[in-house]
């Protein structure tokens, strides 16, 4: 096992658009910057590159800026612990890395919310972004039938992408109502960029049935998915398919901000105009501060990077653009709220915690996430509640528990990596307790 110790003026956690923009702007200011991501390559989800290496123009430009500005890029590296303020511990396949920083930018992005329903654990039932990620990583879908379901604009983007890769899309099922969708579309009038996006998507998806008031009721198959039963406006229909691409909007990845003690409000990290969190020297940009689309996260990332590099005036120049884009973000949340019918999707035997195979019926009697965890092991598996946490919050109104290290599974030797050598801050921290 290798061990490294690196120091940065600005350390960025998360290699999606927000992180890349933050790191590039900061590095262009001449400070020493490092950017960390657990994926094999930069890009996060929205900018995930195709396996052949192709990226969107925007992604390529920003990545080039990052490289040109000589930021250190640490891919395949997962942050799991903060041993003391100013330090993060991260793990890669064959090493543990101590990352020291003066300023920290958290751009940890978001993940999909998965809701359980009978058959959702069958192989080839994936997230909406999940299937897209797999296809970008080389999974062939040409000639395959893919049902797309869930909620949010991501469904359309994924459908368009899959169709371009040769998939057949029998239907797109959006759980929200037609009236909410209509209101959302009206809200887009304030965002010309979004409207043209919308029209382009419409073109790319011509001929693909899109229905609102619709959601998956059950997935069927033996060793893998064979068909999906959906409800549309109360009517049931079963559709043979090869994949179900299903996600219910996004939840922010708050584990690292919470571990560091950042305050949150309504499920998002609280930040000021300069994207500073309530923890000194820690900034946050992108989805953890509010789900809002790639244009917004790019602006937030730049503001955070500039602020971290102490270029407040340059950061301020971007405030106006950010405000415009934030309007759109707020209307997203309202439009794609989850309807209560989705709470009755699981049957008693439907697995809710996939890591530990805990079915719905065993969870129902418990009053809280913590009690359920203690008595059924729900949330005690390697996903650490990232899948079952948002699901149970929705199903049972449980509040999530507190965050403890490691925030990703890490090797015992990595957790043991503090070698006890005196670091002045560390001694104070442990001695003062």
């Amino acid at each position: 096992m290798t061990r490294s110790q690196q120091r940065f003026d600005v350390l960025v956690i998360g290699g999606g658009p927000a992180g890349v923009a933050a790191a590039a702007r900061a590095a262009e200011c001449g400070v020493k910057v490092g950017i960390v991501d657990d994926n094999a390559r930069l890009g996060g989800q929205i900018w995930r590159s195709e396996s052949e290496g192709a990226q969107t123009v925007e992604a390529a430009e920003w990545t080039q800026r990052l490289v040109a500005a000589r930021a250190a890029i640490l891919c395949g590296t997962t942050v799991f612990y903060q041993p003391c303020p100013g330090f993060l511990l991260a793990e890669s396949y064959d090493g543990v890395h101590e990352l020291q920083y003066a300023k920290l930018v958290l751009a940890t992005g978001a993940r999909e919310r998965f809701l359980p329903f009978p058959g959702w654990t069958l192989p080839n039932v994936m997230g909406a972004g999940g299937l897209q990620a797999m296809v970008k990583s080389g999974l062939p879908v040409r000639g395959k039938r893919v049902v797309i379901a869930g909620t949010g604009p991501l469904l359309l983007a994924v459908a368009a992408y899959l169709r371009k890769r040769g998939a057949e899309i029998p239907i797109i099922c959006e759980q929200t109502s037609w009236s909410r969708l209509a209101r959302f579309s009206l809200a887009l009038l304030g965002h010309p960029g979004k409207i043209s996006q919308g029209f382009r998507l419409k073109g790319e998806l011509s001929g693909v049935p899109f229905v609102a008031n619709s959601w998956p009721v059950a997935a069927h198959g033996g060793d893998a998915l064979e068909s999906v039963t959906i409800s549309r406006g109360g009517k049931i229909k079963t559709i043979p398919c090869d994949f179900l691409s299903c996600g219910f909007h996004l939840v922010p990845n708050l584990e690292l901000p919470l571990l560091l003690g950042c305050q949150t409000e309504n499920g998002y990290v609280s930040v000021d105009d300069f994207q500073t969190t309530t923890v000194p020297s820690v900034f946050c940009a992108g989805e953890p501060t509010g789900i809002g689309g790639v244009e917004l996260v790019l602006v937030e990332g730049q503001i955070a990077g500039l602020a971290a590099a102490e270029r407040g005036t340059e950061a301020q120049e971007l405030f106006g653009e950010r405000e415009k884009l934030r309007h759109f973000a707020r209307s997203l949340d309202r439009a794609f709220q989850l309807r209560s019918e989705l709470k009755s999707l699981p049957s008693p035997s439907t697995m809710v915690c996939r890591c530990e195979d805990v079915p719905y019926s065993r969870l129902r009697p418990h009053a809280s996430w913590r009690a359920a965890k203690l008595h059924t092991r729900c949330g005690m598996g390697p996903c650490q509640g990232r899948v079952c946490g948002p699901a149970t919050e929705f199903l049972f109104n449980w509040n999530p528990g507190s965050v403890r290290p490691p925030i990703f599974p890490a090797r015992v030797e990595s957790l043991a990596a503090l070698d006890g050598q005196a670091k002045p801050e560390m001694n104070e921290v442990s001695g003062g307790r």
Partner: protein
Amino acid sequence: MLDKITLTVNGAPVVVPLGATVAVAMALVGQVCRTSVTGEPRGPLCGMGICFECRVAVNGRTHCRGCQILCEPGMEVTTDERPR
């Protein structure tokens, strides 16, 4: 120019495009990544490293997320967390 990679999955050779992840290699050979605690077959769900359903053993190291690891020539992948 190398645009294909050969690795082994559960002992059998598999050819994948350059840039494919281990999770994709599993899908290409039609094999399930893991079996759950109660015996259900499982494959990738999130595609982005948080669900841990794509766990396999890579070169003897168990509990690796297949979707986070790029295939490399000669890599040995085994499923159900059985190290080689």
